[in-house]
């Protein structure tokens, strides 16, 4: 559609992610490393699931559209499950890495806490997932044409960008909740994370009814956001303190360095 749409959609899709990266991750090299490692783990899970799907497509009947649709659903479910498996694998890896880092370093406390790792790894998953979701669409949005000549909805680019933003943020929230649940052995929390991931993915089958897929996704995103906020240590009281600018008093009262 032209450069205006390209930049608009890029900012919508990656705006929150970029700002999070800039302000919270970019200054700390350790966090950057773990972010990239997390992105790599997501990529591996995608590679594996795409390999399985590709093989099943090749051996299937290419002409039967119902079979292809069934294969697509199977592919989506498999991919979601593989992603969560890799997230669990990354968690295990990070636990081991943290112990190792503690042994090597001269300090007494761990350089990075497991909550921070949860956040960083979730964001890494989100970055890579968002990139794969939307980059090829952005590439086509630069051209002069817009979707619609075959009757598809005109709002394809915009809805893809908003969906991608939701997915990136959701990955971050899922990461936080997931690691927290693994730490505390709360298996039902894990199940809720996985099932909400499955739900969001399957909602996209409703496209091109974009309202039907975007609105529930955003609702789930807000709910997961709240949950992740609570898992990360936030509370309504803290929020009120911050908003009413009483945080300085709070900190002084608790002797916490800024």
């Amino acid at each position, binding site marked *: *559609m*032209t450069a*205006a*749409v390209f*930049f*608009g959609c*890029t*900012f*919508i899709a990656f*705006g*929150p992610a*970029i*700002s999070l990266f*800039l*302000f*919270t991750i970019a200054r700390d090299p350790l966090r950057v490393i773990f972010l990239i490692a997390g992105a790599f783990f997501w990529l591996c899970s*995608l590679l594996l*699931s795409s390999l399985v799907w*590709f093989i099943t497509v090749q051996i299937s009947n290419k002409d039967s559209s119902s079979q292809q649709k069934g294969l*697509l659903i199977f*592919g*989506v479910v498999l*991919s*979601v499950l593989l*992603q969560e498996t890799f997230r669990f694998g990354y968690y295990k890896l990070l636990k081991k890495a943290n112990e190792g880092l503690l042994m090597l370093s001269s300090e007494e*406390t*761990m*350089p990075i806490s497991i*909550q921070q790792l949860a956040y960083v790894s979730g964001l890494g998953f989100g970055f890579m*997932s968002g990139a*794969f*979701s939307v980059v*090829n669409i952005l590439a*086509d949005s630069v051209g*002069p*044409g*817009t*979707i619609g*000549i*075959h009757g*598809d909805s*005109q709002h*394809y*680019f*915009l809805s893809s960008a908003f969906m991608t933003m939701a*997915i990136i943020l959701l990955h971050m929230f899922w990461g936080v909740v997931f690691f927290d649940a693994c730490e505390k052995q709360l298996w039902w929390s894990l199940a809720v994370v996985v099932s909400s991931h499955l739900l969001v*993915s399957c909602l*996209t089958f409703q*496209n091109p009814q974009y309202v039907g897929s975007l609105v529930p996704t955003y609702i789930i995103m807000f709910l997961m956001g709240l949950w992740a906020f609570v898992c*990360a*240590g*936030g*509370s309504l009281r*803290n929020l009120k*303190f*911050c908003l009413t600018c009483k*945080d300085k008093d*709070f*900190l002084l009262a608790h002797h*916490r360095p800024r």
Partner: protein
Amino acid sequence: SVTTRDLKKITLDVNSNSVAQKIYVEVNNTVPCVRLLNATHQIGCQSSISGDTGVIHVLESEADLEWPLTKGPNPPYMILLESHLFTRSIMMKIKKESSRIAGVTVVVPNTSPSEFSPHTTCPNENTGVYSDTYGPHLAHCNTTVWNPLGNGLSYEEFDFPVFSLKEDKQCYYDHNRVVNGSAPQYPLCAMQLFSHMFAVTDTATCMRRNDVINFSINPEMVCDPLGDFNVWGSIRPYNRSQLGHRDNESVVMAAARLDSRAFFWDVSTGAEGSISGFVTLLAAAHALRDVTQVAPPTHNILFAFFQGEAFDYIGSSRMVYDMQNGKFVIDLDNVHSLLEIGQVGLRNGSDLFLHSDPVSRMNDTVNDQVREHERYRCSLIHRHHRLVDNFQSSPLPPSSLQRFLRAQNIPGIVLADHRAAFNNKYYESYYDNADNLNLRYPPNMTAEEQLEFLTDTAMALTEVATVVARALYKQAGGDGTQVDNIKADSKTVTQMLFGFLVQANNSWFQALIPPELKDMLSDPPDFYVGVASSSPAKAKPLTRLVQFLLANLTGTATNLTQDQCQKPDDLPDESVQMYSYLWVQGTVPHNGTEKGPFCVRASVRLSQALSPAFDLGEYASRNYSTWTESRWKFIKARIFLVASRDLEMLTLGVGVAVLFSSLLVTYFISTKADVLFSSAREPASAAY
């Protein structure tokens, strides 16, 4: 998470990108107008390097031009023209207001208009024989305008792309209709045309830029000279290693042109403009084969088929140049006379006109020669037509003879079906096709039946071919008693007409060509001369087809095997210096008639038809053709919908707003992080 989109990306589809497929509809079979350059000008069309996009507007009449040119609110526009609206006045109006016009597409028509010729009114006026020093009163069509219907569109320069496409107005009717004078709503249907041409200004500039490629990082030629190969053959063979003047040799030449052109690139046919001429000459050559073996004439007869004549006589000027510089088997002093077959397909009634150059005939010897020529012709009057001399002061029509006269005073006659202006209403245009020659076949005939059917056009051309053959024989000093035995074969003529005008891939043409070229006939033969190539093996399909036709019609079939055919010098009687040996497919064996491939021996050769200006390096020459064709990267067209500018800006605004608000929120959260997340369940945590 993985969405449906992600998995579709992973699909290794043959069509690359499914998102692009949702947006663009590629248009097949695009025929562009390309840029040609000569010593002084550039003509043709050009698009910008990233294509020209415009909202489609179907033009209903000339008055409707107001909408795209002034009134329409969504410029730039891409104008879709029906072929009857493709006129000079409309194109000139569009050219003037080209800031609002992205391009023009012309719908491929089913029927011809009443008349249309995009060529100039006076073809090749600057490179003919008439100039300020030679017959100035005849120069620049002062006395006779040869192509009065010419509107000169082919020689105009347009800075927007002009394409010829099949009709596809569905998108326009769905989205772009103007209802009651109000503008249509977005999204609108638009088309993008890519035909970016590399060369600019004129030939000298582009050839200079070609020469720079040795020093540049990205070597790319920008233009190529036009040219191809002339086909020539003779009754008695010439040793091709002996070039230049031959003592005591006086050759009667017969010439015709092969090529034609149109406004759009590579779609010309030239049925009346060139095919009628060279088919007649081929039939005449065929008619002369037997009699010249039985009773050989005194002089040799040389048949020449010139390529590139539409572009300032590329082929004939090259042959004259070669003759002048001793690079051809004979030279100009060896030429006894020249008979050229012009446009002979549209005879009104039964008249054939003889044109000659009045200025050269003021020389007595030449005049006598020409008179003798005509006397022979008058004595050969076929009962059903007459040969009419043109007026004493009428100039020669545009013909290859003019280039010979520029070099030397040679007696010559041009045979044509028109006294003054052309009878051809579609000279050098896309419509000069089988219908223009009234080539009609009865309905419900298969291709093979049509191949054999004797059309009226073929009968008419056969008569002309007979006259030509007899005249050539007499002119070459042949035995007078044998003249009545010379008859052109109407079956050959009708097969040639079918092959060149209806379907080239037929059994007769397939039999004439070698096995490795059998796919050459899959497309209709190109009659546009195209860019020059260096080796005869890469000559244009039309040229090669004429070469094999001439070999078949004037040569002899031999018993040589395929290996012997490729190396005939090993045999005592054969000589590759005198003849050319061609291994052809022969008829496909059926019903037991096992013909199979065989070796044809003929004195038929190809000689290069590249303008001498390029060999001499005179790219701004006024004497020779300097036509070049620009190069380009790709030519394509696609249709899609465009959204309104407001929607695009809204998207950008929303994006920027999201970015800024997320930056603010993140900054807020990160500065207050230790307060916000202070109820962490692990008390011993590092600072955030």
